[in-house]
């Protein structure tokens, strides 16, 4: 053989009736063309999908990223004692008697002083100048004073949120033309803002309060945040995880490993598959009827939301858990039974650990699905308007009214002020971040623990 390989290739004249292999016959050409066509269809389909995804992501980011920045106005305010504490004894009860209206003159004075300091020319009086601030500015001062009574009489530097219109002006949402019929802001005020920007008093920067803060009323879009609804979603996810994982896994193990195969288990199996396809709003109605009207659990509570989402997530978890149990080779079960393990020992010592990555992946994907679910939450009132920051608003967690991230986004998208529209997109970015993180964890878990046998 070694001799043959080193000798030159013998010259052979083809005599075969099949023809040369160098030329493709008609049938082969047709087959290859069909294959090339099919590959092209596939690439076009993927291309369209990727393009849509890019457009979606681009849209969400360009529209939503503005919500993470907010316009702030820095002002030095003199906390006059004669306005805030006439008796001078710093009695908390007396301090609390001064309402937010009592703080308005301080703001006016602060603006007039700032304008004089910067040498800005304006026809506006102090009150109109103070209107470029958020309606929450006075409450912010009052909270500060009540918390720090010793600061009365001093000059304190505050960072106030600018009003939604001014914020929109800095983000190019509001222009001098667009406010022609707007009673909330005037051209003179925008002129003032321009000069204050030059003076360094007004600036736009990252706004942590959007991520951590509470919702706000229609008049103050600038102070609305996702934080409290994020906690609402977190509480719901805890309920879903604590209930659906053990129930789902126990049900799957029983159905897959122990249940006799007869028509009853067939019916159960078919119904679980059907439940996975039931529209989520049906689960919402069910939750309303059973948990709220019949069991009298509180409306808008994360506990109820979690229960409803548990019902929705269970079929997903059961189906994926059964699939991963099925994927464990039967030889492992035989091996365990062969050395005298009981059925349960073989399941818990050998089958379940091998199925665990699949179960975890299914659970995380089920949770991610539940996290983004809106429709059932609307029916059970999980669109609570919570305007005070945690922990006051949600002290008891599971039973206090709350909202959830997707419900909060829905709420904002409904409101008329375009500033809320921007926040809805910003909320979508946060929600997507959560979903992407969860799905990434699922993929990593699967990669890390997959196929160890």
């Amino acid at each position, binding site marked *: 053989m070694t001799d043959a390989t080193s000798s030159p290739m013998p010259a052979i004249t083809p005599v075969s009736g099949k023809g040369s292999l160098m030329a493709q016959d008609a049938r082969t050409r047709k087959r290859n063309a069909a294959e090339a066509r099919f590959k092209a269809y596939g690439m076009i389909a993927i291309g369209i999908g990727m393009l849509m995804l890019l457009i979606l992501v681009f849209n969400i980011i360009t529209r939503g990223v503005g919500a993470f920045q907010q316009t702030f106005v820095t002002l030095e305010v003199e906390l006059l004692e004669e306005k805030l504490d006439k008796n001078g004894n710093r009695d908390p009860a007396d301090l609390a008697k001064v309402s937010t209206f009592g703080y308005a003159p301080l703001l006016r004075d602060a603006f007039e002083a700032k304008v004089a300091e910067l040498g800005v020319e304006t026809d506006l009086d102090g009150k109109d100048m103070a209107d470029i601030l958020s309606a929450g500015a006075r409450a912010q001062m009052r909270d500060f004073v009540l918390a720090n009574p010793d600061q009365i009489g001093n000059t304190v530097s505050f960072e106030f949120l600018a009003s939604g219109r001014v914020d929109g002006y800095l983000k190019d949402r509001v222009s001098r033309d667009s406010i022609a019929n707007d009673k909330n802001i005037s051209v003179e005020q925008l002129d003032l803002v321009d000069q204050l920007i030059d003076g360094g008093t007004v600036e736009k920067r990252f706004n942590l309060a959007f991520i951590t803060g509470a919702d706000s009323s229609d008049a103050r879009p600038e102070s609305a945040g996702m934080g409290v609804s994020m906690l609402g979603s977190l509480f719901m996810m805890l309920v879903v995880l604590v209930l659906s994982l053990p129930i789902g896994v126990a049900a799957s193990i029983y159905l897959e490993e122990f249940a006799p195969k007869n028509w009853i288990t067939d019916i159960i199996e078919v119904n679980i598959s059907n439940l996975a396809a039931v529209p989520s709003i049906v689960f919402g109605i069910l939750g309303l009827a059973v948990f709220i009207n019949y069991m009298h659990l509180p409306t808008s509570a994360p506990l109820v939301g979690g229960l409803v989402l548990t019902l929705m997530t269970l079929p997903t978890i059961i189906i994926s858990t059964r699939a991963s149990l099925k994927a464990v080779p039967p030889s492992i079960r*035989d*091996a365990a039974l062969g*050395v005298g393990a009981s059925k349960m*020992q073989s399941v818990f*010592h050998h089958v379940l650990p091998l199925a665990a990555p699949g179960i975890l992946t299914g659970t995380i994907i089920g949770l991610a699905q539940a996290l983004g679910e809106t429709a059932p939450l609307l029916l059970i009132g999980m669109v609570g308007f919570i305007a005070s920051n945690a922990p006051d608003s949600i002290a008891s967690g599971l039973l206090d009214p709350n909202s959830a991230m997707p419900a909060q986004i829905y709420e904002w998208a409904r409101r008329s002020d375009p500033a809320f529209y921007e926040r809805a997109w910003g909320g979508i970015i946060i929600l997507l971040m959560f979903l992407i993180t969860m799905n990434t964890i699922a993929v990593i878990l699967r990669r890390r623990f997959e196929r160890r046998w």
Partner: protein
Amino acid sequence: MNDMRVLERDVDTDAIKIAARGVQVFYGDNHAIKDVDVDIQDKTVTAFIGPSGCGKSTFLRCLNRMNDTIDICRVEGNIHIDGEDIYDRRVDPVQLRAKVGMVFQKPNPFPKSIYDNVAYGPRIHGLAKNKAALDDIVESALRRAAIWDEVKDRLSAPGTGLSGGQQQRLCIARAVATEPEVLLMDEPCSALDPIATAQVEELIDELRQNYSVVIVTHSMQQAARVSQKTAFFHLGNLVEYGETGTIFTNPEDSRTESYITGRIG
């Protein structure tokens, strides 16, 4: 056959370990085993041979009630081990399987360390009082399975990382670690190369000192090499059962003769 050793070997003892009378097995409507009577002796290697689908594996799995895990399978008749009916209502199959160990066709080590593979059985049966005792059990099981020297330095390595032959010997070690009295082997060498097969066969011959071994095999040469008794199954019937030497040199039944000479199978 060409290996004449079988003719010289004597059966060690006449004590009967397993007695089966009138065993019938049904898979749904399929009558897989028809009225089988057989006596299996202690400290002897008994081979079940026969063409594919003849029921030899099915009958083997009756002996430790592994067929219980198949829903549609139904077993009738009596199988006694040490004079006790293993299909009696009072018998727990889990206890039975601790007494009747099994090695499967495809090596199926647990996806755990070599040590844990062997230690699993003794652990769940509480055979070891402490870590040192467990270590001893694991070592002696691995020694009896003739694999100790190859794995003693890497007991914490995964059992699935061994070669096919080593995995099968690990599975044998796992089976003997629980101190069974009977060892069932379902085509233990069908997934192995000739060298690994030779090692396992040698091992089976040694195991005969302590256990009664029942082996199902497709290879007649293997049956001739390792067994003292041979049972020939055909279409669910036990056609012929006797001394291995007799079966292979002077079969009574024409079907047995056709099979061992290669005319059916």
